């Protein structure tokens, strides 16, 4: 994941679901923020760069892939309404904002080159010559440091674990000297050129957000429908098994007439769905009892009704058979 410099925090740890994305971004824009907003989700992160209240870039990174511009805002909206996450916002100077832009969106001049194979002095001369605006990243598998450039000269240093921008290269040099250290060089345009557009004006973020909310609601509805369908199928299966069990129990106690009595009582109450209503079950048991008395003695009938009641409660829970 990206290590970005931390300036003075505007806020940290804000739940992503607290404010709708358009509201929050417009509020930050109105405050004239220069800096960045970071959305952190379980498996992804989004970075929104502001310069003097203008949203100059947006990026969503997930795994090895990244989205920018409108796609990033759309994906961020979608994630905000579907996932839990946190938001941090930090103020940065315009120069640092430019350097961070270079890191996130800049042209890659060097990428993953091993430092020991590079003539650092020559590289420094070259960066100065082309008046680099951007960022140099030095890193190993476990450490990383950023060196920020403006007009070919380094003006600040930041490394993992630091809380502020440093003015000395000590830690960066230490990381550069670690075995296997690599280097990336990113170039971007000067800050005054970056701030020529405002994505909040170019993109109707409210529409993007509303579409995401609607899509999420549709998805939730679909999930709810699927869950309801699954519940219905599960219930239907339970009721089918219960009906067969009731017929079997009746058959065991008073023969095939018992089975026919259960079938008739269920049919006269609209089918097995009536088993979900305790009052209907009580009426059904009373009907079976009345009919069974014509073919069996009181003790047999009592056993039968008790058995049926027990099966209903075993399948559908206590109280499902109504009052005895």
């Amino acid at each position, binding site marked *: 994941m990206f290590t970005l410099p931390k300036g003075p925090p505007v806020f940290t740890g804000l739940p992503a679901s607290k404010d709708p994305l358009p509201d929050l971004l417009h509020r930050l824009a109105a405050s004239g923020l220069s800096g960045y907003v970071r959305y952190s989700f379980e498996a992804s992160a989004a970075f929104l760069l502001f310069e003097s209240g203008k949203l100059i870039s947006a990026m969503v990174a997930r795994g090895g892939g990244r989205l920018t511009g409108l796609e990033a805002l759309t994906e961020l909206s979608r994630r905000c309404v579907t996932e839990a996450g946190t938001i941090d916002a930090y103020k940065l100077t315009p120069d640092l904002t430019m350097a961070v832009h270079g890191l996130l969106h800049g042209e890659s001049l060097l990428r993953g080159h091993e430092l020991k194979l590079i003539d650092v002095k020559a590289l420094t001369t070259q960066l100065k010559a082309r008046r680099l605006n951007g960022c140099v990243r030095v890193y190993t598998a476990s450490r990383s440091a950023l060196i920020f450039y403006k007009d070919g000269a380094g003006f600040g240093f930041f490394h993992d674990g630091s809380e502020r921008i440093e003015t000395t290269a000590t830690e960066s040099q230490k990381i550069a000297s670690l075995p296997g250290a690599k280097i990336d060089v990113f170039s971007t345009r000067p800050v005054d050129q970056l701030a020529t557009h405002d994505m909040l004006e170019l993109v109707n973020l409210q529409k993007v957000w509303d579409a995401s909310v609607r899509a999420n609601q549709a998805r939730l509805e679909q999930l709810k429908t699927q869950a309801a369908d699954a519940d219905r199928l599960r219930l239907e299966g339970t009721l089918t098994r219960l009906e067969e069990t009731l017929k079997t129990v009746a058959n065991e106690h*008073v*023969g*095939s*007439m*018992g089975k*026919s*009595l259960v*079938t*008739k*009582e269920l049919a006269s109450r609209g089918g097995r769905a009536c088993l979900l209503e305790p009052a209907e079950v009580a009426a059904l048991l009373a009907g079976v009892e*009345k*009919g069974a*008395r*014509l*073919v*069996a*003695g*009181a003790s*047999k009938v009592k056993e039968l009704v008790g058995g049926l009641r027990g099966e209903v409660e075993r399948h559908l829970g206590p109280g499902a058979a109504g009052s005895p």
Partner: protein
Amino acid sequence: MHVELIDLVRVGLWFIAGLISLYFSLGNARIWASISTGFLLVFVSEGYLVAPWVQNPAVVAMHAVVGTMAALAVTHGFMEYYVFSRTMEASGAKWKVYALTLAVLAGSIVFIVVNPTPTAVVTRHIRLIENACWVFFAIINLDMLRKIHAQVRDTPIGPGFIGFGVVFACIFLWRGAELYLQVYGWDEATTAIGRHLGDLAPADYPFRVALATQVNHWASVASSVALGGTFVFLTRALR
């Protein structure tokens, strides 16, 4: 009227069967009320033999009417049980069965009273109709019982319907034999009334007359015993 010992035995056994039947109907469902009331009426229809007013033709006629009602009530009861065994539907109230039976009895009494006092010929005709009803209803009931038994054979009372089958087979023989004697004019009433033109003398057919008479006597006894036994079984099975 000549009353033989076997007739007294028959009346006594039907009295017992009728009591068992009544006792059974009191503690059971409505459908059984028609059947048991009908069998109780069989005793009533036979009871005139031991009644002190046995010589009263109106009473004799009334007993024969009651016998016909008994056949109707029993058949109606088994028809309802058959419907129940196929549809599981049972409706109605027991008191309605008793009330309707009493109403029909009252109507029959009115019919006998408002008409001229029945002669021996009229009484014999009524008895002949009663026997004809029993014979044909016995056949119908045997078929109905076969179908009911097919439905309920694996229930606790399944064997009871075999018992009823035996009862109706005996009733068929009992009433059929008497009907046979009546149709040919070999019955006691015809002898008492006097032979008519064209009647066949019983003395000319001694074996047939004796056989029919014996079948009539013993089948009546057997039917009452079978009925009593069936109701005892049902009482035990349903309580």
